[in-house]
């Protein structure tokens, strides 16, 4: 080892990283997330938590697209449905935080059942078109003014109180940024774990089979449309769940979250990070939001930068940034 010059740190970093097994990597990540809030200043902690929420949203898209092969632009509808479900639970049923989160997930899935039924019946471009149209329809309806009781004045509804997280006898308040951070991260991790189990279950493998060759999947007796539909609804539930987490964190909801351009953001973030994995969308989201945060101060038309990055990624790294990184680490692994 002494023979290795210290200066060549880049390859040695790769070698070092390549030594970890996925399990160890996970522990490392958990420790990192635990320590992270102590390293960042105030306000930034909530920002980091926000990255996780939007990352989860992007992941819900990655499940539909990367595993289900469906380019869905309706994901934002479910995020928004989650926000409104949260409002409904909080303001009309008077649920506590847990109840509101659950009602958010239920609301999103209730939206997804009919939408998914229609959308999963069509293929390719038509799927994309149908999901865009449905998002536009939903936003148009909710914009009509009859939903003010739910959407709030000017389609913005602010939380009038600081949310509390009751846990048995103790109750944590979102007033503390630390609580907000840890609560969000733990909730997001739970969702990721559930999604991991899902995509590695026989169900997830069946979906991969459908994505890769629908005809063959049909021949071996899979009910293609129904499986796609179930996947669509589950992913919608995750999107709604992230909507509720966002409402807790930002303490406001807006009709705009229903808009398909927010789906577009999820698409861009997930693709930049990589859609073939569950961690990729988080990497993409972090990259997108961090560069937005810091670059937009110097460069107002940040969207141009995003466009160029997206082009480069699609063109030269279709696996996304995470895929690029994982490949680089793997290349250092001794055979």
């Amino acid at each position, binding site marked *: 080892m002494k023979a290795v010059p210290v200066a060549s740190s880049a390859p040695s970093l790769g070698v070092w990283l390549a030594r970890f097994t996925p399990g160890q990597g996970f522990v490392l990540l958990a420790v990192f997330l635990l320590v992270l809030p102590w390293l960042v200043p105030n306000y930034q902690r909530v920002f980091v938590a926000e990255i996780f929420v939007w990352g989860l949203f992007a992941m819900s898209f990655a499940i539909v697209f990367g595993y289900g092969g469906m*380019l869905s632009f309706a994901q934002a509808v479910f995020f928004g449905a989650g926000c409104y479900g949260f409002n409904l639970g909080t303001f009309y049923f008077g649920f506590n935080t847990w109840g509101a989160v659950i009602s958010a997930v239920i609301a999103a899935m209730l939206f997804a059942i009919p939408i998914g039924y229609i959308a999963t019946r069509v293929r390719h*471009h*038509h799927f994309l078109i149908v999901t865009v149209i449905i998002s536009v329809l939903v936003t148009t309806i909710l914009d009509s003014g009859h939903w003010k009781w739910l959407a709030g004045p000017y389609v913005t509804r602010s939380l009038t109180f600081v949310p509390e997280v009751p846990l048995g006898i103790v109750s944590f308040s979102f007033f503390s940024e630390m609580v907000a951070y840890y609560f969000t991260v733990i909730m997001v991790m739970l969702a990721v774990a559930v999604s991991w189990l899902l995509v590695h279950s026989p169900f997830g493998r069946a979906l991969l089979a459908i994505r890769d060759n629908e005809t063959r999947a049909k021949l071996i007796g899979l009910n293609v449309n129904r499986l796609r539909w179930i996947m669509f609804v589950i992913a919608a539930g995750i999107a709604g769940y992230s909507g509720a987490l966002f409402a807790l964190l930002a303490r406001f909801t807006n009709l705009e979250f229903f808009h398909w351009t927010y789906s577009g953001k999820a698409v861009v973030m997930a*693709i930049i990070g990589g859609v073939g994995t569950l961690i990729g969308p988080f990497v993409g989201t972090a990259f997108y939001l961090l560069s937005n945060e810091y670059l937009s101060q110097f460069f107002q038309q940040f969207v141009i930068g995003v466009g160029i990055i997206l082009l480069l990624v699609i063109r030269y790294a279709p696996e996304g940034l995470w895929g690029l990184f994982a490949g680089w680490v793997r290349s250092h692994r001794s055979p």
Partner: protein
Amino acid sequence: MPRRLAPLQILGLACFVLLLAVPYALPLLGAKFWVNIVAEIMIWSLFAASVNLLFGYTGLLSFGQALYFGFGAYGVALGVDILGLSFWPAVLFGVFVAGACAAITGIFAARLTWHYFAIITVVFSLIFFFVAVGWKSVTGGDDGRPFTVPPVLKVGGVEFTLLDPTFQYYFIMTVVGACFYLMHVILKSPLGYTFIAVRENASRLGLIGYSPYLIRYISFVIAGIFAGVAGVLFALFARYVSAQYLFWTVSGEGVIWALIGGSGTLFGPVLGATFLIVVREELSIYWEHYLFAVGVIVILFVAFAPGGLMGLLTRALDWLAKKPAERTAPEIAKPAPRAKGPGGGP
């Protein structure tokens, strides 16, 4: 084949005659307003046809066709208003600007196929939309920019200008007609067949020595130019441009018109644009939220009649052309040949 196409051709010819008569017939019927609507339908048909050229023939779904439409519109408006060009140079400038924009963005976009192509076209059009909204001093932003249309030509002492609705109508009809004829020529040429070939099986096309990239690129630029011509016409027609022309809703309408009309057929987009614009004009009278009905119509078409209006029409004509004894139920129920997504796989 010729025998089966004949009824459709007769119908087309009849439509053409009707279109010629519009500026004189409609005012007689007391519907002066509809002359302008028909003119507008022709412009949007051309725009929908440019989406269809990519989607129906080359198999690329562009959600950003408004970009070239907007460039054409801004090209002619700024050509007149800032550069002080007269009519024809401004028109050519508009078409050129749209074509140049398509030629540059096409370098990137044509390398991609379906998912990614759709995404990147959305991103391109959003980028330029935001630039146009923010750059108020030149584009007028979302407030837009009205401008004065210069006379088209002067013959002797007579000046022909678009301010005369009848002249404007025939001007638009001529330009749109020429574009459709050009599109017909292109699609019937060997180049047109390679478009379809690249949609059906790009890798096989590569094996026999064609570059799928180049073919997609050519198709992309041609479609951009047609969209640009539509933009030029619309700016002249409205005497106004705004960043709104580059907005995604414009692209989305183009896709929907092409789809409803029947993608992969030359005149399908005309049917789609006509149908939905008439629905809009009549329905919006009764119901402010008529868009909802439009959305439902589109979803029904996508799910149950992927061949669009043109598909329904040819099937209906086929059925009528048959002897009653041959009119069997299964024949009617058979789905029309539809424009398939490229390659079949993801």
